[in-house]
């Protein structure tokens, strides 16, 4: 069973403490939302988890293997994949080549031909199969997001971190991303979803983690988190400042 343990992870940049001892665990095919105001440390936490930056202290274990000291490619091979907040498709490589990169990186001795059928199935699912021979730069922003998601399917990790997958995406493409999330989750993979779109978070996720200035201030089901005073304060400020706003800004389950 998938088991990600994050223990007291701290990260400082000079005098700036971006993560202040974050601890949580992901077990099995959970679908978790990671939320927090801008500057809360969400992307830094993602970078620590995927090995892009090393934590100042604390440990990260994936399936009982310590991964916090590993470089990103080894973390990916250990079973943790991610997308980026700003889409990072390989722009001067074709759509198919974009998909072959993780597939070949994960399997020695195989060639692009061995993955052609799988890649085409994924592109059809993402509705961008007609673009298979186009360069990444020819795709729209939304299509590039889909391409990034497709690459993760080729990587086939145990845990996927999706960093703002809905940002700037047309509603039609959002439907495809919803279907993608369900497909991955139904296949027994865990997902950590980072988004400022609360409707999507509350619709999709069964558990929420809330970061605020590097502290994990809440961890629980959406309903509990939504009514957590610390979360409301983090999002809306002091009690006196939020008269009349209520918890609407945090969204409501099922209203997407």
């Amino acid at each position, binding site marked *: 069973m998938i088991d990600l343990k994050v223990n007291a992870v701290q990260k400082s940049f000079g005098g700036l403490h971006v993560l202040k001892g974050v601890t949580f665990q992901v077990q099995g095919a959970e679908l978790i939302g990671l939320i927090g105001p801008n500057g809360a440390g969400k992307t830094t936490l993602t970078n620590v988890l995927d090995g*892009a930056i090393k934590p100042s202290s604390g440990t990260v274990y994936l399936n009982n293997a310590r991964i916090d000291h590993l*470089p990103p490619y080894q973390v990916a091979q250990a079973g943790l994949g991610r997308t980026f907040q700003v889409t990072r498709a390989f*722009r001067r490589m074709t759509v198919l080549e974009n998909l072959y990169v993780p597939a*070949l*990186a994960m399997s020695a001795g195989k060639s692009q031909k061995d993955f052609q059928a799988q890649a085409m199935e994924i592109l059809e699912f993402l509705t961008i199969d007609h673009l298979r021979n186009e360069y990444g730069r020819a795709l729209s922003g939304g299509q590039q997001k889909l391409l990034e998601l497709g*690459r993760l399917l080729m*990587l086939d990790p145990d845990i996927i971190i999706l960093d703002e997958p809905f940002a700037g995406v047309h509603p039609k493409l959002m439907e495809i991303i919803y279907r993608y999330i369900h497909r991955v989750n139904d296949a027994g993979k865990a997902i950590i979803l980072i988004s400022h779109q609360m409707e999507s978070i509350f619709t999709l996720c069964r558990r929420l983690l809330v970061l605020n200035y590097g502290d994990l201030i809440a961890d629980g089901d959406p309903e509990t988190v939504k009514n957590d005073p610390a979360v409301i304060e983090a999002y809306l400020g002091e009690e006196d400042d939020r008269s009349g706003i209520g918890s609407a800004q945090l969204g409501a389950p099922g209203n997407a």
Partner: protein
Amino acid sequence: MRRQIPAIAGSLALGFLAAFPLVYGAADYDYIMHLWITAFFYAILASSWALLAGYAGQFSFGHMAFMALGAYTTGLFNNYFYLTSAATGTCFEIPFGSWYFVVLDPIGISATPFSCLDAAREAWAGNVVVKKPSLWFGILFGILVGGLFGWLIGRLVLRLRAAYLALFTLGFSEILRSVLSAELNITRGQAGLELDPLFPNGITIFGAVFDATDKLPTYYVMFALFLACIAIMLALERSRFGLFVRSLREDEDAAAALGVHTVRYKVLVFVVTSMIAAAAGAVQAHYIGIITPNILIILQMALVVAMAVVGGLESIIAAAVGAMVLYFLLEFLRNSFTIGDVTVDMTTWRLVFFGALVMLTLRFQRNGLLYPLIESCTRSGVAEETVAKRVAGASASEDAEAAK
């Protein structure tokens, strides 16, 4: 059919180049052969730099330094290492079976050098066999030394990108040039280190005898080296290596997050391209017969960069052809001409035209002049295929909606 054009054109060009020395018979035969040999040399350098910079995104300005490492390694090997059938007693030597592997003392810059081996020869009075190891071992060592330094530089620049990488490698190149100039007791500095020709005793090919100064054998050696280097690079380009180094160029962090061992491939591309540059340098050094530290001046590096840029950085073939075309162009532009009473001295002005061509290419045709032509053939039909599939997909959706 259109997709086959580059392959057909390539085959015709190879046939032409293979037959050229045999069918060309004009009075300027040696001069034209010299141009082709040097054009192959630059084509190897430009295409390997295209693999490093255009494919892998590693904008190194130290490529000529690796070429020089190959040239100087074989040059030093050729000048300093001997095999003797008796101990000299005066040189550094290592017993090697019934032979002695002898390393000379620094030869210095004297016009009439007298080495420790010369002293031994006087004592032996002609009773001892003295011979040089095959210069091909020197070329092989040159390639290995190039690869070793490629590995070292590749490791050192792991965290450097863009301008920092360019400046670092430029620094390495200048340091090497300064060391080669400063250590003149060993390298003879600007006095130049002389090397034996590729076939010092001549060679017989299919009954035809060629002496050491004949161009034809060297033409085929350099042509074979060119073909081998291009074949190796194309094979790498089409393998996972090619895919991964291109992903490095596009986004190193994203490639790593997708499981690509970025460090390994970054170092590997430095090693491969350095070895290729060193091989070209080593063979060319034996062809020219003398090397000085000037072979790695910044102007030479700029020439290789310009050749690759004008041909097309993102294609090994385009960079190689671009190098050949530009080299011939530069050579033929040497012919001065007069307009009325004004004489245009093209020995100087040709570089101005050359610079202008590079600037115009960068401004208006950033992918080079040749690469877009190749790409328009190899990717012909892609746009039509995309549109057709999109239309077919839209029709299928409409049918599904209607069925509902």
